[in-house]
């Protein structure tokens, strides 16, 4: 959509038409601007008014986000439902934060203190979390008066000496990363409770990982399992262009389930951003930025935050649709040529940082990718591979055999394995590495034996090889497979190690008996006794 309007800024938020549809300026020419509208444009006429608000697309940040559920423009879905009923029919501006709610404010600064950008002014209790009320990253002053006790978000926290108010919450543009003092390399593990991830391809706090897989390979289930069980403080989950029924399922589950680490309801530590596939495409493009900005906000309080998006491909497709409607020159498979730079810019928002207030916080990202036709050479997967720290490939043939999580153990990799292994050695057991090497070897040997077995038949193999095949099968079914719907859905590292140790010990014992001259069947029988 293009408008004859001067004075608009690039990426400024605008209201379009009598219906006040939300839009964003995406291109500016001499006396004309192109606006991307985030909502259904049906019924819009050529002469309707357009109003700029002077600011880019922002999110509101303050206490009350946790446990909330928002659309791609940070509109709270539950309050939207209360106003419009079960279908999202029109455009309505509803603020993400509840300005009526009262919070108990405890100041940490006093009159005369100097406030630097991003500094903690005081705290309120948000569920189980201490929520730091910070000055905006571009705000500073000297405190003349500071509030204490019951406040609501539309009341100032106090005044600065130059008579400016200290705001109770602030806005931040979604497309700009929130500032921090400095960044560190990720070294601490992010425990997911998934054996195949924690053991074979460990993730790190502050790191990034992608899960690419064709449909039916269990991306969503895996993402949701990680969202439930990961040992982080706060989880921000974006359902980006995915199924409504799955989101309903997840919302219901998060109400019921408890965090295995703190035993508190999962809902209390989660922020959901939901833009299902039938909601407007442009808002889908914005949804991951909206969500990551909220994630950064909690990181800035010194929390460990996990950001999950399902699926990044739907975001890329939204980008492609928007690019096509702007008549830009298409790159590979119709995706705009800036796909990979946008992606890497986005993924770099992850990391371990020292915040402006001097705390250490981390933002980890796990992103699922849905390659068309299950073909990993497509542009989105390839663009992700350039920046991601871990690649967990979901395999269609494993999924067909109901081997879940269907993580392929030959093609996947994690660049954090080295750093994180040090931690596991120290915290869990010195044996961690040895077991990992043994497990890898057995799976590797099985693969080559399988080729032989296909030619000579399983009968034609030697007993030692058949034992190895048997152990490898146990690793696959009893260790790598995990039923997300059972108790086993979450496996702490101690359990993971104990399981693999038992399988390998059994293997070594049976191997010893073979050397003593027993046949495989006898050795197995002796084991069973």
């Amino acid at each position, binding site marked *: 959509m293009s408008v004859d309007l001067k004075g608009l800024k690039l990426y400024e938020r605008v209201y379009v038409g009598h219906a006040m549809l939300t839009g964003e300026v995406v291109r500016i020419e001499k006396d004309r601007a192109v606006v991307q509208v985030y909502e259904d444009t049906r019924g819009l006429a050529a002469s309707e008014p357009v109003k700029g608000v002077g600011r880019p697309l922002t999110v509101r940040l303050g206490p009350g986000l946790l446990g909330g559920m928002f659309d791609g423009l940070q509109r709270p879905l539950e309050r939207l439902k209360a106003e419009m009923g079960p*279908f999202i029919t029109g455009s309505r501006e509803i603020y993400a934060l509840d300005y009526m709610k009262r919070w108990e404010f405890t100041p940490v600064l006093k009159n005369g203190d100097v406030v630097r950008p991003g500094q903690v002014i005081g705290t309120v209790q948000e569920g189980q979390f201490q929520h730091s009320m910070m000055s905006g990253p571009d705000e500073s002053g000297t405190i003349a008066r500071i509030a204490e006790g019951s406040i609501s978000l539309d009341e100032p926290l106090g005044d600065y000496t130059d008579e400016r108010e200290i705001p109770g919450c602030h806005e931040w543009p979604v497309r700009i990363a929130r500032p921090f003092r400095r960044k560190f390399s990720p070294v601490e593990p992010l425990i997911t409770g998934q054996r195949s991830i924690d053991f074979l391809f460990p993730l790190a706090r502050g790191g990034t990982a992608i899960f690419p897989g*064709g449909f039916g390979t269990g991306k969503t289930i895996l993402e949701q399992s990680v969202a439930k069980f990961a040992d982080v403080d706060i989880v921000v989950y974006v359902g980006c262009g995915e199924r409504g029924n799955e989101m309903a*399922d997840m919302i219901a589950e998060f109400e019921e389930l408890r965090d295995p680490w703190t035993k508190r309801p999962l809902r209390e530590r989660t922020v959901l951003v939901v833009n299902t596939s039938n*909601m407007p495409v442009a808002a889908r493009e914005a949804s991951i930025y909206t969500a990551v900005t909220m994630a950064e906000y909690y990181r800035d309080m010194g929390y460990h935050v996990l950001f999950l998006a399902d699926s990044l491909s739907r975001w890329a497709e939204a980008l*492609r649709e928007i690019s096509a409607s702007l008549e830009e020159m298409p790159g590979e498979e119709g995706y705009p040529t800036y796909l990979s730079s946008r992606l890497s810019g986005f993924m770099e928002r992850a990391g371990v940082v020292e915040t402006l207030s001097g705390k250490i916080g981390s933002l980890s990202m796990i992103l699922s990718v849905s390659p*068309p036709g299950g073909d990993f050479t497509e542009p989105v997967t390839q663009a992700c591979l350039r920046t991601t720290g871990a690649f967990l490939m979901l395999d269609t043939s494993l999924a067909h055999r109901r081997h879940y999580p269907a993580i392929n153990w030959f093609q996947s990799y994690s660049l954090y394995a080295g750093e994180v292994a040090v931690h596991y050695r120290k915290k869990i057991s010195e044996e961690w590495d040895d077991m990992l090497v043994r497990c890898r070897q057995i799976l590797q040997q099985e693969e080559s034996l399988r080729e032989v077995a296909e030619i000579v038949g399983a009968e034609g193999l030697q007993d030692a090889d058949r034992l190895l095949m048997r152990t490898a099968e146990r690793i696959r079914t009893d260790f790598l497979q995990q039923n997300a719907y059972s108790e086993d859905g979450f496996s702490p590292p101690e359990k993971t190690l104990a399981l693999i140790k038992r399988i390998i010990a059994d293997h070594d014992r049976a191997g010893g008996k073979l050397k003593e001259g027993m046949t495989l069947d006898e050795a197995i029988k002796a084991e069973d006794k």
Partner: protein
Amino acid sequence: MRLSEHIYRTISTIAGPLLFVQNVFSARIGEVVTIHTPDGRNMEAEVLEIEGDTVLIEAYGGTQGLDIERTSVSFTDAIKKVPLSSDIVGRIFNGSFEPKDGAPMFIPERLTPITGAPMNPSARARPADFIETGFSPIDGLNTLVRGQKLPVFSAAGLPSKEVVAAILRNSRLADSSKKFVVVFAALGLTFHEYAFYLKVLEDMKTGFVAFVNMADEPVMERLLAPRFALTVAEYLAFEKGMDILVIITDMTNYCDALREISTAREELPGRRGYPGYMYSDLASLYERAGRIYGKEGSVTMLPVVTMPEDDITHPIPDLTGYITEGQIVLSRELHQKGIFPPMDVLPSLSRLMQKGIGEGHTRADHRKVSNNLYKYYAKGRDLRRLEAIVGRDGMTKADILMLDFADAFERDFVGQGMTRRTVIETLDTGLALMRKFSLEVN
């Protein structure tokens, strides 16, 4: 809001279904337009783009015989709406919502925009009520639940219409003998298929609503008919409290129509010439299935997709699979073995099954039976490759047992023919089969 109707005779270009009209005052995106043809017909069209006072409109019907001098266009200031009433049950319409059954048009209770509105994710109730289809591979291994969208992936020559017909006849909700009201959208159907489905629908005791676009009728109607069907389905489900089963056949014709129209609009083509927005477009249909908190009814969807060249990675089945909650895949191999229904359970999947089975839904051991059947059948199927290389004689006894199990599974469990099985019969059949081969059930 305009108070008078405006008629324009300012058409500047006609190309395929597209017309440019000049000097138009205040048109709206998506506005319904009537084209008055030189031979006195009236045809509907929709506003696609507005550039200053030049408007691009797209005709729903055939544009043959239009000219620039005598064709006129009137703007209605309304967007496309669907007439709704309880009287709609039992009726058959064409792809332009005109009665096809000889009876007069009903009197609408109200009009609703055709595209519907996206359901607020927080208003969705999670689908968990079991639907018995009567087919073992579905009920036992890929269970369908109320509010789910589960497509049937078929291929040319496979008996998809017999499968769909049997599901229509046999489907029941678990809690009672309550049956579905069927909303049927046929896109690009041949007369042969139409006659078949018509008979099935008329034999059904419960109600149905049908929208039929025949193979020789306008392509644009193929994009409208499923939207009519779904708007009617949402109305009957969420306002009249009915359980609706929406059957759309064939989605491949829908996508081809979408491609044809997209090309006519000179849009940039994506994979295999299909438009880049096909995912969002398909989602705008499929995502209308579901249930709402605090409402009685439900919309369950069973679209049929014919995989071109039997290829499941073709954009149509691929994008469908990414949106729907699983898929039922028909296999040419099983069909050639004479097995009906020829459902290949390995690539088939029902994502919402876990919530709809077990104690209180079907039977406590359902999950166990289903997991075991899968495990053993997958193993047997794997071994077939080995058998092809080393021959049956070169295999261990245990392997031969698995091979025989896989054959028996296809023959006795999947290949039930036209008989209807209850889910209890399905589970017992599965258990008996594993017992026969003395396989552990754990």
